[in-house]
């Protein structure tokens, strides 16, 4: 039987734009805050997995944190970088190699839509030259097709943004903290039909660190351990519809989100009905809608009623993206997936302040999705 794993400390550097502080420094600050939260010293940390997409090699942080000789492995896995660091840390403890370690993600991106390195993404130069190398186009096309098939309305997309910005206004770590209305979201600049400016998240900055320990030693660090019941990463299978794809197969496959979700539920031995709240990848408003169904929380098309009825609000039946999600926090790629876990730890500890989900939530879910068709899921419980 493998060793169980608990999250015993969490740290975060504010998301958004922090002039004069590098992405790496934001990661260092997150690590220090996580160590303080767990009451451990950096020299107690036995191993680290960390990564960023655009802010440097994580293992060079040790020159600021202290040269303790720990095992430090860099992770680079696109939008699943944070999730992959967590997956690796989780399994390192489960395997019994180490007792206490840290997963770190941080980033700092230039303004505007992500500039795609077509060659690095395995695509010809003609693809970018022709104006096709924009991740935003994929999101517009996926939700446009989905709205056509399942009857999701423009109003529902606006309501997702409205909720995200409202939740963000209650989150001192969030980038966007000014509420906007559904109508303001619908009326903002159309970037990639049917998605407007306020329906898209922006590349941003931030850092998150999570300290993991053997569950049977968690009491040494915290009186509120949060147990990691599943951590899964999956890539795409043939026939799925993914970002930056010059072509897709005629036959349809559900995609990596569905696969990682099923695997995570199997690993945890529970089902979607057992989840009290979820952080779902909301690169844009439509993604949150589609990911509700892809992760098994409803049937395709049911989101229209659920969102219009307010079920995904913090006080609703199934709260989604309680910290404002990517829409309010922005997306520093390396840190984004760990930000979701950070929020769930706060919620399960009962420390989420103004945005605390009522009735003492016990089980929480995270989901990331990104290029070139990768998804990561975690399930946490207290």
């Amino acid at each position, binding site marked *: 039987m493998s060793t169980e794993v608990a999250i015993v400390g969490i740290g975060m550097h504010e998301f958004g734009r922090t002039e004069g502080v590098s992405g790496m420094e934001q990661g260092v600050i997150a690590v220090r805050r996580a160590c303080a939260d767990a009451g451990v010293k950096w020299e107690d940390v036995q191993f680290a997995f960390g990564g960023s997409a655009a802010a440097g090699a994580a293992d060079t942080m040790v020159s600021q944190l202290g040269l303790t000789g720990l095992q430090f492995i860099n992770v680079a896995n696109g939008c699943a970088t944070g999730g992959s660091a967590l997956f690796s840390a989780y399994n390192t403890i489960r395997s019994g190699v180490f007792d206490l370690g840290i997963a770190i993600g941080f980033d700092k991106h230039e303004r505007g839509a992500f500039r795609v390195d077509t060659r690095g993404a395995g695509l010809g130069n003609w693809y970018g030259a022709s104006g096709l190398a924009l991740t935003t186009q994929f999101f517009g096309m996926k939700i446009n097709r989905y709205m056509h098939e399942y009857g999701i309305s423009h109003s529902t997309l606006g309501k997702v943004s409205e909720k995200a910005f409202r939740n963000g206004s209650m989150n001192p770590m969030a980038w966007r903290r000014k509420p906007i209305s559904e109508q303001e979201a619908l009326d903002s600049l159309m970037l*990639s039909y049917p998605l407007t400016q306020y329906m898209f998240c922006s590349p941003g900055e931030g850092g998150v660190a999570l300290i993991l320990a053997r569950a049977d030693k968690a009491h040494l660090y915290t009186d509120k351990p949060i147990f990691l019941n599943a951590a899964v990463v999956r890539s795409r299978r043939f026939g799925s519809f993914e970002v930056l794809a*010059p072509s897709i197969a005629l036959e349809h496959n559900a995609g990596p989100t569905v696969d990682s979700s099923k695997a995570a539920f199997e690993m945890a031995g529970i089902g979607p009905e057992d989840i009290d709240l979820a952080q779902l990848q909301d690169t844009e408003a439509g993604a949150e809608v589609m990911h509700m169904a892809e992760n098994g929380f409803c049937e395709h098309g049911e989101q229209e009623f659920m969102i219009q009825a307010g079920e995904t609000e913090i006080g609703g039946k199934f709260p989604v993206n309680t910290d404002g999600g990517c829409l309010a926090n922005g997306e520093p790629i390396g840190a984004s997936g760990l930000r979701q876990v950070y929020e769930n730890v706060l919620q399960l500890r009962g420390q989420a302040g103004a945005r605390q989900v009522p009735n003492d939530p016990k089980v929480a879910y995270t989901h990331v999705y990104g290029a070139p068709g990768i998804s990561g899921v975690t399930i946490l419980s207290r």
Partner: protein
Amino acid sequence: MAQVPVTEGVFTWPSETPQLIGSRCVACGNHMFPVQAGCPKCTGEKTEQVLLGRRGTLWTWTVQGFPPKAPPYAGDVDPKTFKAFGVGYVELPGQIKVEARLTEADPEKLKIGMEMELVIVPLSTDASGNEVVTFAFAPVA
């Protein structure tokens, strides 16, 4: 002004009736675009070049409403003169869904399921003064 293709080997050029150049898996018949050597469906290692159909139906679409970053984009990125352009996937019967620019950018005129045909469109002017062209799909009138 001479016309030059944005790349070789992705669409037939010059051609009165342009076609996209793809691959077909020798083992399972799966179609791929652009050309590639291995099959993602059956893991087969042998593919042959094939010209894809010129007509299909619009599977989904969006409109690129802001100037893409340059590089990699080769077209107009001046916010004052930039014109929004359509992007979509066109389902080529029996073959594959391909991503392309669309000649239509008006959401009122784009409908999932509409009939589309491959055309060659101007993209930019290169340093030598040549007109660079790429492929796009146009609604069939």
